[in-house]
């Protein structure tokens, strides 16, 4: 059923043709479009036999494409090496230094930061992979890092302290107007080129975010008019100085802004920010070339500044990513000033898609995270990606955890549905039937002429204590109703039904997310290759196991399910931090390997101790807290706990009587079972 794309869709075609096709598709890649990128990744994956030419095509593209498109192209590269791996890693790492550095010199500071973040992820293992090796070999990444470091140091010597928290605008020495060409000044420039509207958050910060001035509709028109005139001015400016990249970028950003303003309504906060920015620009534009005019932008988010305070409302993210926003006008945009509608979704989609969201992707999905540190994003990635069923609330809560503060409009975190069944499913269908359902039943009954005696609420009548042969033969439409019509919300992937209630919808949403993640994982040969059976469980494990539906469980529910298992040290586990699948227990110094029993990377038999992950059994031994338990260390796949349980089971079994107690009186039997059960559970 899993619709796997046929292998080798280009099979029989020469490498050159495949590469040409690939290059063509690359040319269409205008921005950071996840679907296009993953599509290109899939093409690359299916044509590994042409990897060399495809790699070459990709590198050529990166080299030749205009700077604004370089980053998306790099994301294709990133996605391919992370999701396909060899042989692409080999081919792509050959020229990586040149490719990377050349692009780095040409792009603006914003993109550079994203490239830095991407580079950082290349030093780490592919998140969620068993393979502990980094994405690219250290000898590939290291030279790039060294070069960048040298550039930064050089910039430092030029009297541009990279770390600056003072609001004082620096003395620019007229550097701004020099085109960004010299490599030595690369870093300094990255701070100064006021491209896009990255300056806006700072301005926003300077004015108190609250109370928001009343937002009036005619303001929009004013802003639009301002933008239009700005566009005109910038156009003429650009016409007079075609080579000036900063002007062109600014023009591009303005055009984007114009588009956004025309297409959609902004919430008051963003509107305010846009307005302020446009006003400032209108004021500056004529005097553009004088350095003082650009002072405020320069203060914006220097590269090494600690993250800006999170309560700054996000401002005009649309300019940077107009294409990322699904054009959904469904949600009214006024709440949630931090995330525009759609951003949250795109961020969420990033987490749910099962692929490893790279840092730049995350930053792009939610521009308000632009200023987040890698660590914060990591924490968030950890918090969200590790949850079994990320949903909006999880995302928000993990944002909270990672240090973001949302202005009190987080979408209803309290509406988390109870992890158990929706109430209405447990109710007899008859009780839940309003009039409408009667009519459904009536029509149902019309199709079955021989049934006349069955009342709509008949499910109660089925509860015979002593059902008779005739009552058993009477058709009871309410039972069919409960199985079908009462659960109208059907999953098209597997036919599973959900009630038409709000809880049912949420459940279905989680279920669909689960399908999506599962299919992604199934499509990944790196995950599916080498699949094998797990050992069957023994009695203890089976008894303690709570069978729940992973496809609809929330993270909360999952955590709760896992709770009772944590009693014994060898059954404790710790979620693996992203990218970390090997760990050294700092007590016994043995290696621990992560496993993924339930879609989630965890260290089995593990606990946190002084902030480090150690064997739970070691910790128990050291603290002397619990009774002596058989210590089985770090066996991946839960084999350790299994073996430990086995030891206990054998102990328990040995003192059992040899013959099975074949007890006839069933109450007595049950009592005996209970006794035995508890004996099985002790130790």
């Amino acid at each position, binding site marked *: 059923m899993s619709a796997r794309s046929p292998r080798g869709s280009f099979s029989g075609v020469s490498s050159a043709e495949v590469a040409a096709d690939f290059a063509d598709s690359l040319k269409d890649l205008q921005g950071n479009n996840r679907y296009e990128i993953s599509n290109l990744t899939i093409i690359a994956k299916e044509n590994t036999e042409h990897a060399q030419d495809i790699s070459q095509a990709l590198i050529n593209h990166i080299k030749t494409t205009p700077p604004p498109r370089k980053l998306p192209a790099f994301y294709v590269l990133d996605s391919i090496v992370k999701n396909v791996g060899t042989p692409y890693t080999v081919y792509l790492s050959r020229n990586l230094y040149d490719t990377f550095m050349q692009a780095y010199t040409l792009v603006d500071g914003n993109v550079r930061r994203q490239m830095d973040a991407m580079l950082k992820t290349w030093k780490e293992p592919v998140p969620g992979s068993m393979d502990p090796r980094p994405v690219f070999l250290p000898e590939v990444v290291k030279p790039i890092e060294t070069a960048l470091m040298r550039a930064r140091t050089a910039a430092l010597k030029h009297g541009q302290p990279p770390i600056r928290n003072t609001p004082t605008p620096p003395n620019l020495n007229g550097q701004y107007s020099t085109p960004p060409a010299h490599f030595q000044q690369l870093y300094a420039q990255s701070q100064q080129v006021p491209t896009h509207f990255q300056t806006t958050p700072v301005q926003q910060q300077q004015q108190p975010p609250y109370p928001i001035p009343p937002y009036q509709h005619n303001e929009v028109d004013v802003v639009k008019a301002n933008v239009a005139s700005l566009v005109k001015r910038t156009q003429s400016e650009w016409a007079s100085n075609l080579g000036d990249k900063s002007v062109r970028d600014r023009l591009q950003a303005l055009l984007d802004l114009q588009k956004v303003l025309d297409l959609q309504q902004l919430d008051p906060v963003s509107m305010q920010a846009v307005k302020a920015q446009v006003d400032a620009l209108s004021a500056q534009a004529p005097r553009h070339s004088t350095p003082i005019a650009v002072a405020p932008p320069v203060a914006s988010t220097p590269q090494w500044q600690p993250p800006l305070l999170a309560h700054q409302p996000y401002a005009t993210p649309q300019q940077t990513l107009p294409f990322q926003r699904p054009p959904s006008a469904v949600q009214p945009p006024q709440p949630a000033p931090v995330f525009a509608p759609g951003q949250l979704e795109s961020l969420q989609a990033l987490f749910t898609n099962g692929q490893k969201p790279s840092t730049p992707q995350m930053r792009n999905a939610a521009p308000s995270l632009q200023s987040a540190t890698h660590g914060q994003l990591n924490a968030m990635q950890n918090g969200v990606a590790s949850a079994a069923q990320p949903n909006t609330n999880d995302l928000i809560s993990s944002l909270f955890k990672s240090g973001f503060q949302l202005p009190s409009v987080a979408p209803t975190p309290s509406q988390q549905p109870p992890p158990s069944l929706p109430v209405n499913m447990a109710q007899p269908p008859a009780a839940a039937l309003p009039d409408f359902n009667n009519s459904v039943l009536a029509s149902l009954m019309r199709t079955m002429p021989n049934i006349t005696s069955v009342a709509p609420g008949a*499910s109660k009548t089925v509860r015979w204590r002593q059902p008779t042969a005739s009552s058993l033969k009477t058709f009871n439409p309410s039972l069919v109703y409960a199985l079908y019509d009462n659960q109208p919300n059907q999953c098209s992937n597997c*036919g599973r039904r959900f009630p038409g209630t709000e809880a049912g919808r949420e459940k279905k949403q989680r279920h669909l997310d689960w399908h999506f993640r599962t299919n992604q994982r199934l499509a990944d040969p790196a995950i599916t290759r080498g*699949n094998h059976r797990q050992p069957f469980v023994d009695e203890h494990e089976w*008894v303690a196991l709570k*069978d*729940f539906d992973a496809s609809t469980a929330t993270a909360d529910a999952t955590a709760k399910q896992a709770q009772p298992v944590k009693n014994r040290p060898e059954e404790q586990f710790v979620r693996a931090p992203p990218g970390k699948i090997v760990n050294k227990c700092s007590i016994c110094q043995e290696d621990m390997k992560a496993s993924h029993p339930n879609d989630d990377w965890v260290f089995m038999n593990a606990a946190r101790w002084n902030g480090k992950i150690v064997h739970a059994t070691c910790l128990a031994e050291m603290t002397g807290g619990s009774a002596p338990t058989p210590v089985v260390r770090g066996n991946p796949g839960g084999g350790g706990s299994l073996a430990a349980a*086995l030891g206990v089971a054998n102990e328990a079994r040995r003192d059992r009587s040899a013959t099975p107690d074949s007890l006839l009186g069933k109450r007595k039997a049950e009592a005996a079972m209970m006794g035995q059960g508890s004996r099985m559970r002790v130790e």
Partner: protein
Amino acid sequence: MALPGLSLPGLSAFSGPAQSTSTPAGTGGDSAFAGPSSITRTESLEPRTEWRFEVSFAGSYTIRLLSGTAEIFGSELAPNLLYSFSGVKAAVFTWQGCRLEIEGEAESEYVGSETEYAIEWLNVHGILEGMREDAEAAPQQGGSGGPRVLVVGPEGVGKSSLVRSLTAWGVKMGRTPTVVNLDSREGLLTPPASLVAATAGSQMEVEGNGYGIAPVSGPTVSAIKTPLVYHFPYESPTEKPEIFKGIVTRMATAVTSKLEEDAEAKASGLVIDTPGAALNDPRSNYDLITHIISEFSITVILTIGSERLYSDLTRRFGSNPSSPSDAVIVLRIAKPGGAVERDVSFLKSSRQQETRQYFFGSARETLNPHSQVIGFNDLTIYRARSSAFASEEDEGDNDKGAADDDDDDYEPTAGNDNSGLLFDKVTPSAAMMGGLVAVKFCASSSDLETIRDSAVMAFLYVADVDEARKRLRFLAPHPQRLGDRALVWGAWPEPTAGLVG
């Protein structure tokens, strides 16, 4: 079966799962009726009719639901999704009418309109739901929990189908019923020769046997269910009733403990599937049925297709003068019009497919077994005593012979089963080739009762026995080391040839 150079069975051998095998190994005359050729055709079904079809193991048959609603043994078909079947005798039932698109070759296919059975089955589901609601409403402690259902009846009357339907409907209502299979001729999430309990916490499947798949190391399309497995290497419980009873007791202990741990599962109850002929023998005074009923505290007995069984069981369990509330409900359920006896060769193919799928997975989830070579000295293999080995028996002939004489008859319950003779420690021999060996959750030095009662960790397939070099090659389902475990080899199921190579 000498297979030199087979070092990576997981990668090389899995070229042909059951579906694509070109040799219809004993699928029982499937070539005679080459039904309609593989033209796509559409069938419209009236409400409460069903589309019955039988597909050989070599055949492939796909069904797509175009409109309306339809289910196979309680599992609903998703609209416009292609479901494929092979080695299946089943029926697509519709309560509300539907249109199906069908493609492929079937041994037989037709619309069945005598579907009164379905109404009864659904009403049984209604009764069980009522009892589950009661159990939920009742206070947790001391509450007797949900219905504990035992399904009994002769061969080929649809017992397994009923169990599957009741489970699927229950799951659809948000329940988590526990399913117990006591028929060692068929696996449930496992190879045959196992007695299994599994709590259905997630959806039932349309394809396959409906229960999805037991845990594997990676993502799966099918829903995962975790079975508790015991080894019963005999075709029929009557062969070794004492062992059967011992395992039933053991399993009932575990199941009861589990239900006590999990209130939801407790309220959802239990459905037990049983082997046909073996349990229904009036001459044994329903000894085994009685044992199951008491061990699992059965509250509902469903009898299919046998009036006598219904009558006998009603008399025996239907009323309890001392405490009427404890009386077991005994119901007689109609046999489906489409129920067919599955012949010996079909069942054999079915078992071989189960065995194959245990190691290699299905077409949807391919798995890689691992080859292991182990010296005779590093193994402790027990052979489960069985009449099948009687011919080569050279010690203990006397008492064993007595048992053999009775073999065609019903089992003379006690007598020959003093526990010392449960297992023999054996040196691996060529006779083991193609057989299944159970790895038990107990040390190899455990006493025989412990070995008998221990749950199964894994099954191994004996790929090769090199008696000269005293080495044994296994196919193991997972790469984990076995450790010091007791291995038990039984004569059941029959050897599966050609699993590797």
